């Protein structure tokens, strides 16, 4: 046994191991939530109704105003398909990251430091938002109202959802990690999240001026909403590369901020440290 362990210590954990472990963690999270069957079902259904409400609103809007600077209801359908898909990916695979600011304030990161696996990965998978399955279902259904219905389009839709999910995740990690430096950032991080989410629901052609700049930078709605819908309508390899590039850059920033924050946590100079 110890010999086998010694081998483990020499090598770092492989990606394959992390992937299969991720699957195990998601399974356990779902099983855990299934203990409350009724609540589980209600949350999924509730989320679907939630999303239907959103679509209904914009359906009514586009009934009265069929086109906003080139943006039609179909574009909104595509938008919702991509945003709900990316949102559900993050909520299923990394819901714990939403709790990070709170965990930091309560010193709950200690648990994750005691296990021999990547801390951010553990935090992310510590929870799964069950209602996200409702979102995922909805995203797939609303996709059919988007107008592009070929196999390639579907493949593109999946690809775009994954890339935007990564950007979304990076955003959450960065905003939540600020808690490492200020001790208490939970409410603010939640507000930033809602602000970003807010931007992604509107016809993206409505933004210009300073608002547009905001969507290009601190609340990157451009990259997770406007740009993917544009690529979905008119595929353009340059735009796609831009998106992937942005995802990669923000990923490295997120990891950097998190690592720095974790070091700070481990030196124990947080305001709310409990001796």
């Amino acid at each position, binding site marked *: 046994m110890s010999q086998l362990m010694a081998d483990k210590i020499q090598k770092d954990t492989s990606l394959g191991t992390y992937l299969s472990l991720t699957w195990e963690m998601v399974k356990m999270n779902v099983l855990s939530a299934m203990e*409350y069957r*009724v*609540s589980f079902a*209600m*949350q999924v*259904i*509730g*989320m679907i*109704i*939630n999303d*239907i*409400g*959103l679509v*209904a*609103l914009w359906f*009514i*809007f586009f*009934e*009265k*105003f069929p*086109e*906003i*600077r080139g943006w039609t209801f179909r574009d909104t359908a595509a938008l919702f398909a991509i945003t709900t898909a990316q949102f559900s990916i993050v909520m299923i695979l990394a819901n714990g990251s939403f709790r990070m600011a709170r965990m930091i304030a309560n010193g709950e990161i200690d648990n994750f430091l005691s296990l021999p696996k990547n801390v951010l990965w553990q935090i992310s998978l510590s929870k799964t938002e069950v209602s996200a399955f409702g979102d995922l279902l909805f995203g797939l259904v609303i996709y059919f109202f988007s107008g592009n219905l070929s196999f390639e389009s579907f493949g593109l839709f999946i690809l775009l959802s994954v890339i935007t999910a990564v950007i979304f995740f990076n955003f959450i990690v960065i905003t939540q990690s600020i808690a490492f430096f200020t001790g208490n950032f939970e*409410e*603010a991080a939640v*507000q930033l999240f*809602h*602000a970003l989410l*807010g*931007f992604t629901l*509107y*016809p993206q*052609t*409505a*933004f*210009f*001026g300073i*608002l547009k700049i905001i969507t290009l930078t601190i609340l990157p709605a451009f990259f997770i909403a406007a740009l993917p819908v544009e690529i979905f309508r008119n595929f353009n390899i340059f735009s796609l590369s831009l998106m992937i590039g942005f995802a990669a850059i923000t990923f490295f920033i997120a990891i950097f901020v998190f690592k720095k924050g974790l070091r700070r946590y481990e030196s124990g100079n947080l305001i709310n440290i409990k001796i």
Partner: protein
Amino acid sequence: MNGVYALKIIKYFEVAKINYFNSLAYVINALSRSGVVVIRIWIFAQLYRITYAASGAEEIGGLTVAMVVWSLMMTQSFQSSGRPPVSEIIDEEVKSGALAYSINRPYSYILFHLSGYLGRSTSSLFINLLIGSAASLILVGPVKITLFGILFGAILMIFGRLLDFLISFIIGLAAFWIEDTTAIAWIYSKGQMVFGGIILPIALFPDYLQKIAEFLPFSQLFYSAARLIVSFDMELFHKFILIQFFWIAFFAALAYFIFKKGLKYVTINGG
């Protein structure tokens, strides 16, 4: 006789006052939430400018762009000051059994929560309106608001909040029978979003939907007050106040009925 009523009123006023000052302490939280409101107003200003430009009209449904933005700002302020939702509080009380204890208190349970709700929401309402008005002024300029508009609008607003309270209260009571009332609360808030005129004013609805939406309770919560303030019309006021009264009577009766049923449930099952 008068003395007894006076005492009763003072009691509820005190409850409202406590909740008012309590929530004033959360000014910073309210301010950050107001930040979100400002961004939303900004988005609305741009969205509706472009929308109106696309139709080539200055006025649609009796509203200019500026009036649309101001009415949305007010609707949103009214809506967000109603948090935390009463349904959550009632749900908690039912689940924890505190409800059973409260029944023994010498004041009406429902009035207690109503005063709490009004007290809580008043401070955040003022802050939201203040900041929202400043933002609207800067983004779309002023709109012609008359004294009548404010007066009668305020009446609609107060009754609208009463309606919101009643519906939220009933949802909370569902906790007697349902494990998780948040799903129902969600549906209610979605109803507000679609038919409550908080993102798309009812006046801008396609004609066939407008009549239906105006009659539904959702539009009477926050939108009708905002709509009236932004462009006062006595006939409109009459229409709205009647619809409000209808729904208030309906939900008040429903609340009473469900409450009684719930209490019976408690005494049979011991909470």
